[in-house]
């Protein structure tokens, strides 16, 4: 990885690394509310079977995960724990926000105890809309994220510059 640090990563190597990265994502499932069941259906049920996309669910700890999926209502009481877990994940890390609640508060947009969107706490890569989104929608979100990882410039990412969204 010295090449990445020095900023001289050749293009073919970049795409090779990206391809291997995008098909070996470990997803940490943070099930918060109802959406967690649909996430469970996407990750754990034979009908949707996320592993065929090269995504492995159920890591033992966030320290081994590349991707975290926040599915459900984020309450103000939960926020410190979310931030703490996110900070424990190793870089490069990605976030999927699943469901209206995690996106923007959803049906609880005027509730006193609900955080209006997980993006107030952690940066989000892919938003999956719906209440709850179907498991297929989550799978599409994962595919979109994989496309994005495939196009990523690792040198830019190392420098900590904002990603170019394409």
């Amino acid at each position, binding site marked *: 990885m010295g090449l990445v640090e020095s900023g001289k990563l050749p293009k073919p190597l970049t795409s090779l690394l990206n391809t291997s990265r995008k098909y070996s994502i470990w997803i940490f499932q943070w099930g918060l509310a109802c959406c967690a069941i649909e996430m469970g259906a996407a990750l754990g049920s034979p009908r949707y079977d996320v592993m065929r996309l090269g995504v492995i669910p159920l890591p033992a700890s966030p320290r081994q995960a590349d991707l975290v999926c926040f599915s459900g209502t984020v309450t103000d*009481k939960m926020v410190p724990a979310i931030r703490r877990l996110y900070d424990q994940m190793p870089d490069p890390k990605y976030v999927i926000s699943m469901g209206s609640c995690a996106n923007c508060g959803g049906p609880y947009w005027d509730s006193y105890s609900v955080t209006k969107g997980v993006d107030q706490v952690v940066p989000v890569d892919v938003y999956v809309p719906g209440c709850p989104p179907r498991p297929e929608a989550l799978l599409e979100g994962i595919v979109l994220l994989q496309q994005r990882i495939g196009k990523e410039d690792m040198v830019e990412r190392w420098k900590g510059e904002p990603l170019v969204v394409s």
Partner: protein
Amino acid sequence: MTAVSDRQKLAYVNSQAADGRVNLEFETQEGMTLNMGPQHPATHGTLRIIVKLDGESVIAAEPVMGYMHRGYEKLTEVRTYPQVTTLVNRIDWLGSFANEVPFILAAEKLMEVEAPPRAQWIRTILFELSRIANISLFVGDMALHIGAMTAAFYAFRDREFVLNQIEAVTGGRFHPNFDRIGGLKDDLPKGWIADTKAAMEKIRDFCDEMDDLVTGNEIFQARTRGVGVIPADVAQQFGLSGANLRSSGVDWDLRRDQPVGLAWDQADWKVWTHPDGDSFARFWVRIQEVRESTKIVDQLLDGLPAGPIMAKVPRIIKVPEGEAWVATENPLGEMGYYVVSKGDLGPFRVKIRTASFNNVSVVPWVCRGVYVPDVVTILASLYFILGDIDR
């Protein structure tokens, strides 16, 4: 008072001993504190449990809730009646349709309208379908917590058949938002009855499969039998309801004992109880309940009356002044709504009684003196849903 089995007596003696130990430990400040959650697979979401340990055994366990508090009771005050069903769907998110029914019934009671028989029957059918969807996931989940992955995959697989049927009627896999004051939104689609019967057949097979795979499994029995015993009197004192209460030997089911106008009395079914009150009993009672639910659905589908599905209600719903309490036997236990109306478009105040809140309140009592791995199985067998606890 129901009869007390030997196992329950033993549990009582053990609990007395545990009480003594707790006092001793708290006085001497020994032991180690372990935090489970708020992100822990065994807590079905975001329950946090602080456990005080002496070596491997638990001397005190305390649930910390509120991580999923979404403020339903306050939100209902600023919503209209039809909008409230959208919210209450999401309390117990595995059996969503069952959450709507008591609220709608309470509103109907205040307005003095009654849904036509066909609507009542379809309500009952959907109610039971959501019970099956809810509890079949429990069956897989419980096995998962004992360490058997396979059962969870099977549960997710077979649950889809029920969700398909719910989706075919209501348009939502869960969160149907289908109940209306005075009836239902739509009638059943064509061919649904035959499909549902086929799905019920699959669910019965699923139950048999789970009996083979899990119930009779020696490891499963060793981990659950005699673990987490809740005697009948303790269960009643803590206000447990649903299968948790029935597995302590108390024969109490609101579907039978407190009819609210739905069609349960039209079917022939049985309330199962188990004398032991341990984790295994809670698992066993729930599997039987799924079987009974499939029977209810089958019978109701056979006798489904014809007719309209909507009573005459005004287009803009205003509920007259008054108060009403309706409780039904939801998948997790007794769920009730106390609706106070001041004659507005929306309720003035709604008090929601959910089963899981009481079901976890027994955790400190039942977890004293058990080993750490048993905490997980006890939590799994008590079967709560976080939205149902915190609301």
